[in-house]
């Protein structure tokens, strides 16, 4: 990266580092509909330096478009909206390439499907014809391209992520955790521990035994006294903690024993397998994942990890060591031991990766050392989830129709109302007016196949009225807010860092409330 770029992006590199920036700069984002919220999303992605973007919109700029969109002005009236917007946005960052496509979406959908393959993420904003939306979602779902659908109506906003699966290695989990291998120390660590005869040390040296060693030795003692059992339950761990404390010559004076006692629970707890790993192992062997040349690298790693575990009966060691009271010599020795073991494990893990790559018809040249390293470091913090292609499901419908909850689920009311609002405009070629309340109610019943015998909840009708009364899709502060949230989620997907939305987000700008739902 050039010096200027480093400086320009300095404040964000501190969040997602060079790896995240490289992924971002390699991404191509597609925006369907040049709306106010769409402009905000692109602005927030262009500033941090997304690689390329394409705006798809065949419409011409109208008075209505100018209102609420900072990047269009009167000179643009009557011109292609996608070109006008791209022209303004391109000025934001010379590192970014922007393109405009003034073709109707339905025509693009009739064309070759490969058109969409160049995009890493697609954002659809506000109104799209229902059959086009379905066709596009189907197409991209199969091609594993994540889609964000974002809509703004009055003071409300909704955002949904459609992605077959989302897997994250660099989750930036804030938990301060170190895999210390207290329960099952490897040979070198065991030997080092054995080389210390702690009973014969003088008081000063005794107060400088690193707590890793204290815990290993205490556990040996515990196992002797408890028939080889390891203290796993909470009560046993607490008992173990007292045993640690009892091994100190003077707990007031020996910080290292205090640290050991303090670290007990976590050190024992985290020597076990994270539950997610077992789920991933099951999944990688199931029908869901076909290990072929198109399989995402994440599953190659999972498969390799499974083989690693089968061979060595442990996970690769991340190798990090917390600060602790110790002599410099002992601490440096431990740092070396953990570092060497981590490097050794990483090498062995890489061998498994190469094995899996070959077996699945991929090239050995695909091995990326940095990403393997990152996977090993983050093994306890992986994130994986499967998404939904559906816009809603039946249990959501029954939830909003429950009579007792007129207030409790207002954000679901908002979600369904906004969905209906755009469908209404699609079917009837205009957004509902304040006089259209009854028509809107009927449309809603019809859209979600609700029997006319059952009254619509009062809370829902309140939301209908609110949305219809405004009849605006571009209040600027809502566009600004939803644009911020959506681009934040796109950044997570593009940088492959942090945990993205799973999978529906609804914002109520009247009350400043938001909720997340999983469909």
């Amino acid at each position, binding site marked *: 990266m050039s010096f200027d770029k480093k400086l320009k992006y300095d404040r*964000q590199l501190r969040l997602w580092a060079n790896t995240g920036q490289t992924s971002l700069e390699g991404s191509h984002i597609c925006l369907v509909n040049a709306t106010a919220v769409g402009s905000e999303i692109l*602005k927030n992605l262009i500033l941090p330096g997304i690689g390329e973007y394409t705006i798809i919109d065949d419409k011409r700029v109208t008075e209505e478009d100018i209102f609420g969109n900072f990047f269009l*002005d009167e000179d643009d009236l009557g011109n292609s909206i996608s070109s006008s917007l791209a022209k303004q946005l391109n000025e934001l960052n010379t590192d970014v390439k922007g393109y405009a496509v003034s073709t109707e979406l339905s025509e693009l959908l009739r064309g070759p499907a490969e058109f969409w393959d160049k995009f890493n993420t697609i954002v659809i904003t506000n109104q799209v014809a229902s059959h086009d939306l379905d066709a596009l979602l189907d197409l991209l779902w199969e091609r594993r391209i994540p889609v964000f659908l974002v809509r703004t109506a009055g003071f409300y906003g909704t955002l949904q992520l459609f992605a077959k699966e989302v897997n994250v290695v660099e989750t930036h989990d804030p938990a301060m955790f170190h895999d210390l291998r207290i329960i099952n120390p490897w040979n070198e660590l065991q030997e080092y521990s054995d080389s210390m005869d702690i009973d014969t040390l003088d008081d000063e040296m005794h107060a400088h035994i690193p707590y890793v060693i204290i815990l290993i030795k205490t556990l040996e003692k515990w196992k002797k006294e408890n028939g080889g059992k390891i203290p796993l339950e909470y009560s046993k761990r607490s008992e173990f903690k007292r045993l640690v404390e009892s091994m100190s010559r003077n707990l007031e004076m020996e910080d290292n024993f205090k640290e050991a006692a303090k670290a007990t629970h976590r050190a024992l707890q985290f020597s076990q397998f994270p539950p997610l790993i077992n789920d991933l192992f099951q999944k990688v062997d199931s029908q869901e994942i076909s290990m072929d040349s198109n399989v995402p690298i994440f599953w190659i790693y999972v498969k390799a990890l499974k083989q690693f575990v089968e061979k060595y009966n442990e996970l690769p060691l991340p190798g990090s060591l917390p600060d602790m009271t110790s002599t410099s010599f002992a601490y440096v020795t431990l740092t070396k031991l953990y570092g060497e073991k981590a490097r050794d494990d990483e090498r062995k893990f890489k061998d498994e990766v190469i094995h899996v790559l070959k077996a699945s018809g991929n090239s050995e040249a695909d091995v990326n050392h940095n990403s393997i390293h990152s996977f090993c470091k983050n093994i306890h913090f992986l994130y994986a989830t499967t998404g939904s292609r559906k816009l809603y499901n039946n249990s959501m419908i029954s939830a909003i129709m429950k009579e007792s909850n007129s207030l409790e689920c207002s954000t679901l009311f908002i979600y369904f109302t906004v969905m209906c609002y755009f469908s209404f405009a699609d079917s009837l070629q205009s957004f509902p007016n304040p006089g259209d309340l009854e028509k809107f109610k009927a449309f809603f019943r019809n859209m979600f196949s609700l029997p006319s015998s059952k009254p619509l909840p009062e809370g829902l009708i309140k939301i209908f009225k609110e949305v219809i009364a405004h009849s605006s899709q571009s209040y600027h502060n809502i566009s600004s807010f939803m644009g911020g949230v959506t681009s934040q989620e796109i950044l997570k997907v593009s940088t492959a860092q*942090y945990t993205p939305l*799973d999978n529906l987000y609804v914002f109520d700008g009247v009350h400043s*409330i938001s909720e997340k739902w999983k469909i």
Partner: protein
Amino acid sequence: MVGAGGIGCELLKNLVLSHVGEIHIVDLDSITLSNLNRQFLFRQKDIDKSKSLTVAEAVEAFNYLNVKLVPHHGNIMDSDLFPVSWWSEFSYVFNALDNLEARRYVNQICLYLKKPLMESGTTGYDGQVQPIYPYVSECFDCQPKATPKSFPVCTIRSTPSQPVHCITWAKEFLFAQIFDETSTNDQSEADRANQRRKLESETEDKAEIENMLRENDEFNELRNIVKSKTSTKDSNFFEVLVNKIFSTDIERLLRIDSLWKSRRKPTPLRIESYTKALKELSAERSAKDIVVDETRVWSVLENLFVLQAASSALHERLASSESFISFDKDDDDTLNFVVASANIRAFIFGIELKSKFDIKQIAGNIIPAIATTNAIIAGFSCLAYLNYFNQITSSDSFHKAFSSSSTIFTSIRPNKYITSAALIEPSKKCPSCSHARGILRFSPEDLNNMTLEGLIQLIRDHYGFDDDISVILGKSKLIYDYDLEDNLQKKLTEINGFKAGETLLIQDESDALENLELYIDTNTSGKTLFPTLKLKEKQMDNDGENKDEDMPEQGEVISLDDDEVVELDEPVETRKRGKESLDGSSKKAKL
């Protein structure tokens, strides 16, 4: 709008598109390259231009709603540039600031003038907006704010245990002692005694104090070497420096047994073992690329090489043109010097080494910042402002807005994406809004002729103080109490610092009435006006602690003694707005 940076750019756009009538924009900063990743109204060509003037110009191009934009390039705390009469013109104040001092100042002004204020801020993915309705909701000072961390001198000088201790040592101590203006060359006896007293307040260890004082003297020698105009080529500055700070000083520390009773001992660096490798490395052409490799942690040898290069560059600069050099994170010579010396010290003390990138963040107090969080926060800010304007015609607008506004927090944690909390009433212990305050408008004649005694009499008469009072001018200048009568016969203008834009704090020495704070202003057309205020009886301190005080901040992580880390949910009492709701399918979490 105070501040035209990350939040300011976004907010200005939102306000203009919401069709606000007139917006004044104040900022004292100029545009830098690292602003461009988020401050979308600025371009590469705008670097070094005034932020406030540039945003106004940039928005003018899009200003088809004809919002009146008035930019001011200046410090908001300058009461000559921005007197109280200027402030009174506004119906709403937005803070889009990056520092505590200015935030506090604007908060104070808004309290005096009873102006609604929107406080906002972001750090990386975290952000917050807080609407402030003076005396109705909490003001900025009601909740104590975390002040920048500082470390005891002894930790920095003798017993570091974290990377930040070594970085602080390298920047605040080592670098400042050798290169910067502030350190004194020939110390007087008084200075020494002063230093000794300061150290004695932090440690009782006599040997440690003596050692630190001795180190100081020796730094003066080093300073003399770099200051001497001898050619840098013949200078042995680097050798003397490295020997002193990484070998001699460490050995001396090791001799103070009391320091190492319960600590890990440092290992002095054996410089001679690196000399040969350092020479070889220096001869390599690729060696100069080390400093550019900012995200990799350098080896000890590489750090020595960088320290050597930086020392010689700094020495050269002092020998040729500059009389002193201050640390600046964007001055690469100074940054390299700090990075390398901090890392070698860390190695000696068995502390983790850090990359140049990470050390720059710590030494330069860099706060991560991105467009998305600013856009979200500015969106909220503008929404909450619209909410207030819905109530503005009501006579009771602050109370109405109070019950319908929220404080909002955003974060990256999936279950805490947005948290909104009902506003709460002002803290009874707030140093700013718990007592009476108002603006005292002097006629020019009174300001020039009135004596302090005359003023005090008027204050007594107006506010009903029975007993003796004390008067403090500005932050801490006592101008009157029953022991200090020297100023009584002086005219107000003869009292140093007594002028428009300053404040007077009046305290009732008998503790009968609450404190009174008066802001001094002039009233050019007419007579002296005292603000109409009814002072309350003073609340005694022992009438029960404020319950909120021990309540943890939102999202704070509390570590219990057995190290089970517990993340607190929103404190229940203040988080009324959040609500439970049932789920459509199976899993659900509130963002």
